[in-house]
């Protein structure tokens, strides 16, 4: 099962553009990332620039409205994520618990929806399956 560990650093919602984590925190985190990698569970990871460098596209009016960050209404924002492949939610939680996080940080653990979990009609809508069945494509010799 794939899980995302979403890092939510409190205070990051107001962080100035270009804010970077300090060297000590990065060093501790690198060690943790290495442990994930050695265990064969790490699929991907990234850190995100603060919202003050981002934008929000909202659809309240039915049309996209773009607003540059920061976003005063946001209480929690993402600072980064890990994607891991583990056997259970408990294992994902155990990995999250081992993160050398600071007191202001929260990790939200969320399971990735796999295609095979979707009901058949959703799978069909998502895959264009019917058209492919109707006109099976054979490779052509060239």
């Amino acid at each position, binding site marked *: 099962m794939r899980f995302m560990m979403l890092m939510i650093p409190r205070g990051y919602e107001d962080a100035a553009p270009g804010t970077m984590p300090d060297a000590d925190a990065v060093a501790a985190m690198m060690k943790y990332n290495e442990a994930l*990698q*050695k*265990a*064969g*569970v*790490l*699929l*991907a990871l990234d850190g995100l620039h603060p919202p003050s460098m981002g934008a929000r596209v909202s659809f309240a009016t039915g049309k996209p409205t773009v607003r540059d960050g920061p976003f005063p209404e946001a209480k929690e924002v993402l600072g980064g994520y890990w*994607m891991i*492949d*583990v*056997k*259970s939610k*408990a*294992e994902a*939680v*155990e*990995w999250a618990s081992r993160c050398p996080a600071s007191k202001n940080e929260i990790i939200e653990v969320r399971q990735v929806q*796999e*295609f*095979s979990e979707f009901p*058949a*009609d959703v*799978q*069909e809508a*998502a*895959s*264009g*399956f019917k058209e*492919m*069945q109707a006109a*099976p*494509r*054979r*490779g*052509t*010799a*060239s």
Partner: protein
Amino acid sequence: MTASATHRAIDAVWRIESAKIIAGVARMVRDVGVAEELAQDALVAALEHWPATGIPDNPGAWLMATAKRRAIDRLRHRKLLERKHEELGHEMELAQEMAVTDFDTAIDDDIGDDLLRLIFTACHPVLSAEARVALTLRLLGGLTTDEIARAFLVPEPTIAQRIVRAKRTLAEARVPYVVPRGDELAPRLGSVLEVLYLVFNEGYAATGGGDWMRPSLCDDALRLGRVLAELAPDEPEVHGLVALMEIHASRTGARAGPGGEPILLLEQNRARWNHLQIQRGLAALARSEALGGALGPYALQAAIAACHARAHTPEETDWPRIAALYDALAALAPSPVVELNRAVALAMAFGPAVGLELVDSLLEEPSLARYHLLPSVRGDFLFRLGRLGEARAEFERAASLTRNERERALLQTRAGRCGDVDAG
């Protein structure tokens, strides 16, 4: 934390730590069977203590220290019984062992070597392939006997027996607990990679099945492959195998329709391929090639899979390159199945007549006599050459040979299509 939550957490800790603990203890007791028992004892101790005390800050170090303490007790006990003089020196090592166990950072590097020893031991050629598979999943994958049994569709006692016998065989053969070196390394590594690929293929063949345990074997194999790639970073074939598994697994979401029916590679919706996984596979392949491993059997198969993965549409597929890679694979590891695949690549690159010529040369091959893909491929070539009557006969024969019901349905549909075209 409630009792059941604690048990779930202990279970998760066990998944993460068990291989390391077995590996570390095995170096002390020089017997993977005994090491596993001692690790299990440590788990039982955790199950007794942790619900009351809470989970310790470093649960892995706690389990390791507990297991090693029991190992020392056991060795002392045996020494008292046997009064073996030479074990005194060994015990001094053990005392040192205990000293470093308290510094969990210090054991980090040793653990890598121990894990590697455990992998090579569990995959030792003295064991049959199925014994190696069961033992590897048990000792390194952290799977229970019941989980392995479900994954391989055999009764649990069969797997339990297999594991017991495998441990006994290793002990009786006095297999040393070491990482093979020199000339020994290549064949021993081959034995390890074979096990991982067997596990992967068992899961891959079952994708879309009702029981999630079987497809999850792919994840187990991939996880072990990634662990091995970290432990043996200079071995090109390890990266080649990881690349091959990543790229194949990237197609999981596209390989079956909503009803579970198989969808052939060229008909898959490529938007449903896992492109992040493809990137990991291509990166592993690049690593293998950078280490000079481009011509290893796993790297070659990965390179073939990569040709498909890089093509955004089936028409973009570089078939001449795939045919050339199959030529290299056929020269390196000749087999009728590789020849059959080479025929498909040649047909795609240079036309069905070229493919048919090679396939026809395989018709007398005894090992393919009951292999459904031979008539299936031959039927496809004949179909494309417009020889529909012959094509239908081949599809029908292929349908009668396959044991997979959904595949049979697909082949019967293709046979029927030959009829339709005839009539039209």
